């Protein structure tokens, strides 16, 4: 019996980790600047490619993953400086600009690198409970997702940067008037967001085939998680991921991956009809 329960938890943890890791970066950027970064998938792809490249050069996996996340973060800061910065007053245009960027990056990668790169296998290691065997790496991913949530909580709730960042989120003009350097806050937040995207790619790189268009496999999940999470991303993202993971897990188990994805989308469309502001609006109301 406990084996079945653990198996359920394992499946839940798997989907939950995927949702959190793929959505966290997008949510931070959206919550901070109201900008949906359409090149999010390409930052994930960047993280994955850097990881695999470094591992093939002989760098240990864990270090390669950290370096990949840092690379994606730095590129993010650069992109913010060159492109996104111009569009803070026009969020829809920033979405189009980042989409243009995403097209350029994906297709250039196809031109330069070609369609497939030699991958690295999933790290060995499995354990058995009852009659089932489980991959250890999937649990590591779950651990990473929880660590990302905890890390974001600490950064945004316990540090000076976090206080200023939340003030900027609430009212950028007021924060600026009080002396916060909102431009720098935006750049750093965008960097954190893309760095998290890179981390997602780095963590999933060993488990999937690397192709320049791989970003597309993450974007639906990250989009819907952010949409359901609602405007207050610090509050909304985690419950949204829990909720969607439940639906996804139930449908995956009985009908397979694709029905799971369709079901998740249908659930999202139904929820925005009832809760247009997303889950965080309910939580905020309760909190008052």
């Amino acid at each position: 019996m406990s084996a079945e329960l653990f198996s359920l938890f394992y499946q839940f943890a798997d989907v939950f980790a995927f949702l959190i890791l793929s959505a966290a970066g997008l949510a931070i950027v959206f919550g901070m600047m109201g900008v949906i970064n359409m090149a999010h998938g390409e930052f994930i792809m960047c993280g994955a490619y850097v990881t695999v490249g470094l591992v093939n050069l002989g760098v240990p996996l864990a270090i390669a993953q950290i370096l990949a996340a840092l690379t994606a973060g730095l590129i993010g800061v650069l992109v913010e400086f060159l492109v996104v910065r111009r569009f803070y007053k026009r969020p829809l245009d920033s979405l189009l600009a980042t989409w243009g960027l995403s097209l350029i990056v994906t297709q250039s990668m196809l031109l330069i690198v070609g369609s497939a790169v030699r991958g690295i296998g999933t790290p060995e290691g499995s354990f058995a409970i009852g009659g089932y065997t489980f991959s250890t790496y999937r649990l590591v991913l779950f651990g990473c997702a929880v660590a990302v949530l905890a890390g974001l909580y600490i950064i945004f709730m316990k540090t000076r940067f976090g206080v200023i960042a939340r003030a900027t989120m609430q009212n950028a003009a007021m924060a600026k008037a009080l002396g916060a350097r909102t431009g720098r806050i935006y750049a750093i937040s965008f960097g954190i967001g893309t760095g998290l995207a890179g981390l997602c790619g780095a963590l999933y790189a060993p488990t999937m085939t690397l192709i320049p268009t791989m970003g597309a496999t993450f974007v639906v999940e990250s989009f819907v998680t952010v949409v359901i999470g609602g405007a207050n991303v610090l509050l909304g993202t985690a419950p949204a991921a829990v909720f969607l993971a439940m639906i996804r897990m139930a449908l995956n188990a009985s009908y397979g991956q694709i029905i799971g994805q369709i079901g998740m989308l249908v659930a999202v469309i139904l929820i925005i009809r009832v809760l247009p502001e997303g889950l965080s609006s309910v939580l905020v109301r309760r909190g008052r």
Partner: protein
Amino acid sequence: MFKLLEGPQTLGRGKMFWSCFLVVLAGALAYPLFADSYDVGNFAYFLIWIFMALGLCLMWGYGGMLSFGQTLFFGIAGYGYGVLAINMGGGSATIAALVLSVVLAMIAAGILGYFMIWGGINGIFFGIVTLSATLVLAFFLGQTAGPEWHIGPARLNGFNGMKGMDPLTVGDFYIEGSALYYVMVALIVIVYLALRMLVNSGIGNVIVATRENPQRAEMLGYDVRKYQLLTFVIGSGLAGLSGALYTSWGQFITPSSIGLPAAAMPIVWVAFSGRSDLTATLVGSFLLLFGFQTITVYSQQAALVLMGALLLATVMLAPQGFVLGIGKLAADWWQGRRRRGDVVADAGRLQPEES
């Protein structure tokens, strides 16, 4: 009724504009007489996509709803046409298949639109939800390779796409080559003029008012949600028309014409052209399609990189759109020359930056 062809919502008026329109139309009609049939087929192929662009122009430029789901409805109608044409048998039934598949796309748009618009989704989220639905459809169709995925005798065939449906047929006559080209030209003229009348009519004014300020429009007594849904259904239906015509043109359709990067293409065309005007969208989309096809012959990736660069350049340099900007410059220059010193009051009002 024909008064509505000109109005505050569309650029271009007076004898000058309409004689240009007639010259272009005459050129388009005469074109197959002195071009070889391969080029005519190619031209018909560009024209297929124009409907989708005009639909997006209506939703985004006039209605202020940025839908990323044009290829979703393109795909629904495209696959719908295939399934229906195969199941109903060829012949004149293909015409019914075309109509039904467009209706199918409009019903789908009505359902999705109801949940989004009545849920109060707008702005960025409207795009995100429509794009998510688009990608999910593409993933779904991509994994339908097995023989168990069929509707009647029509196999969906996963990534390889569905094929084997008849092209549009009347009796025994296949509408292909020049005949298809003339059908396309006729449809484009009808759709273009009908959209001009729509946006200049009372309904069009409410649609534009909703874009400018939904609350104000609501306070004036309009149920803006109904108008938004109408705009979304018409715009998506036009994407469906493109999809059904596309399947009929090539007798095949694959999931790759739904997912990324295909979903970005209508956005690039309309953004580059100038979303706030139908004529600019018509001209700009055609030019872009022509250029894109020319480069695709050498490298599809290079063509897509260029499309991405154009999108980036448009939002950074000319958020209103390049074709519209150039057209306005030309119009201003013309008017300025005719009555120098006069203030050009009615050269068309720019819409505000956001929207």
